[in-house]
């Protein structure tokens, strides 16, 4: 924190204002500039979160009788949810998606690329960085279009594999693997950049000393680098989990959750229930579950980093 000086000259600057007026002036001094932000945050962020808590306990729909006057139905939505085969399926798929694409895929690949880039020339680094980051900068709908073309029956992958006789419609035969790969492709850049920053803080002489002591590359990584970047790994895992948990556009555009419900993660199932069948109350109950999970991860992340505000 560089500057947090209150401005004493101005605090004392209202000479004949009585005590109450000065206090009011002081409150206004911070309240006025903060007000627009507070209003927007309360209406559009806190509002919907509280609203989702309320409507997940009602039978709110947009069609039929309940759309006119929804009523309080207690925990029925949650009871329905835990008995709902499709919801459980979606929950497991979300878990697989987060573990597969974020925790294993992006995290490991990002760390690997960052490690491989250490000590390489500038040209190598910028080429690799450029390509990996490009996949990250591309809007998700375009990423989906690229992967749709890449994996489709007459697509690039099948052409490349042509000789091996394994051509197939990947999006139908292996939809989860397809969306996981697409998300690894799209998200690895973030982990790579986080780890590049973390690795640049690992002192070179420590590694050198270990190397003089006869430590192999693998042991140097395990006993020197890894403990030093432990914090970055943990917070990276939290952040990419949060980013992956509610991924929608990429999966929706690539497989639409299909075939059937084979790649229907919870955000897609929530979308289907709320916007195709207009079961707003039920959809909100699922939204609440996602919010609580996201909130927990966000709290753990906050505890982990050193925030100094």
């Amino acid at each position, binding site marked *: 924190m560089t500057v947090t000086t209150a401005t004493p000259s101005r605090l004392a600057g209202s000479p004949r204002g009585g005590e109450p007026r000065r206090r009011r002036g002081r409150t206004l001094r911070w309240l006025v500039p903060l007000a627009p932000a507070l209003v927007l945050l309360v209406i559009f962020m806190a509002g919907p979160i509280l609203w989702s808590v309320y409507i997940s306990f009602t039978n709110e729909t947009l069609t039929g009788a309940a759309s006119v006057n929804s009523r309080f139905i207690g925990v029925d939505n949650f009871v329905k949810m835990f008995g709902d085969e499709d919801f459980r399926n979606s929950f497991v798929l979300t878990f697989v998606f987060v573990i597969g694409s974020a925790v294993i895929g992006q995290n490991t690949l990002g760390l690997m690329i960052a490690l491989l880039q250490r000590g390489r020339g500038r040209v190598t680094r910028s080429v690799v960085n450029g390509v990996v980051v*490009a996949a990250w900068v591309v809007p998700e709908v375009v990423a989906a279009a690229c992967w749709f073309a890449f994996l489709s029956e007459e697509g690039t992958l099948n052409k490349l594999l042509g000789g091996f006789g394994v051509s197939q419609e990947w999006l139908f035969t292996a939809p989860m693997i397809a969306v996981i790969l697409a998300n690894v492709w799209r998200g690895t850049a973030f982990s790579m950049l986080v780890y590049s920053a973390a690795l640049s803080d690992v002192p070179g002489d420590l590694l050198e000393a270990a190397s003089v002591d006869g430590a192999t590359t693998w042991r140097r990584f395990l006993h020197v680098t890894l403990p030093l970047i432990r914090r970055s790994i943990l917070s990276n895992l939290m952040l990419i989990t949060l980013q992956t948990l509610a991924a929608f556009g990429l999966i929706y555009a690539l497989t639409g959750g299909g075939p059937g419900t084979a790649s229907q993660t919870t955000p897609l199932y929530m979308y289907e229930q709320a916007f195709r069948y207009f079961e707003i109350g039920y959809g909100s109950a699922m939204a609440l579950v996602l919010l609580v999970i996201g909130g927990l991860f966000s709290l753990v992340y906050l505890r982990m980093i050193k925030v100094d505000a």
Partner: protein
Amino acid sequence: MTRVAARGAALLALALITLAFLGPFLWVVLASLQPGANLTAQPTFEFSLVNFRAVMNWETIYLPVLNSIAISGGTALVTVLVAGLAAYPLSRYKLRYKRHFMLTLLFTTGLPVTAIMVPVYSMFFRFNLYGSVPAMVLFLAASSLPFAIWMMKNFMDGVPVSLEEAAWVDGAGWVQSLARVVLPLMAPGVAVVAIFVFVAQWGNFFVPFVLLDTPEKQPAAVTIYTFFSQYGQVAYGELAAFSIIYTAPAVLLYVAVNKYLAGSFSFAGSVKG
């Protein structure tokens, strides 16, 4: 393993990873340049700009891109204005609940926006805001605020208070001081926040998809999805050309702020406020 062999292995691994990352891009680049392209990235020796010419019309490109500019630009503008104002007391004054407020904002940045779209839709529907672009822009600005306020405050902390003091002596209030002294000095920071918000909204698909009612209001992200979800009857060359035109601004803007963003990746490790 000798040093040379290790070096060779690392370079080989990097080359393979780079090629694997390039794979999915192949199609979009090749197909955009080839008339009669299908889903295969099959290089022929026939190149033309016919696909680009075909999509350069009002409904396909101009209107959706203009909508994207209006939505992303409007969101960036509102966010920067509101976050800039909010950052001033947070950076300059000692406030009792400042730490709590900043931590709450940081906590909010972690919440999945996708998850609140059901209640947001339901609220928009009740208050007759469904389909309203300005209302959606306000929502998008609100969802960008937590991160934008953090960034703005960090940039503002870098502007020494001593520079403002001269303005106060001249009788300037906080508004003049903020507008004439602080903001001009942190102009690069303001630009970074604006571009960051703009690029994020440029790629946003889910929110307009849920909150806007007619195709005429939709930004390019949604149009492109509609374009390619009509399986079987898609002109793939045109889809690829559209994708490239739509992606270009995001890439260019990213390159512009790349230098400033580099620092924020140590952000993941520890946050300084």
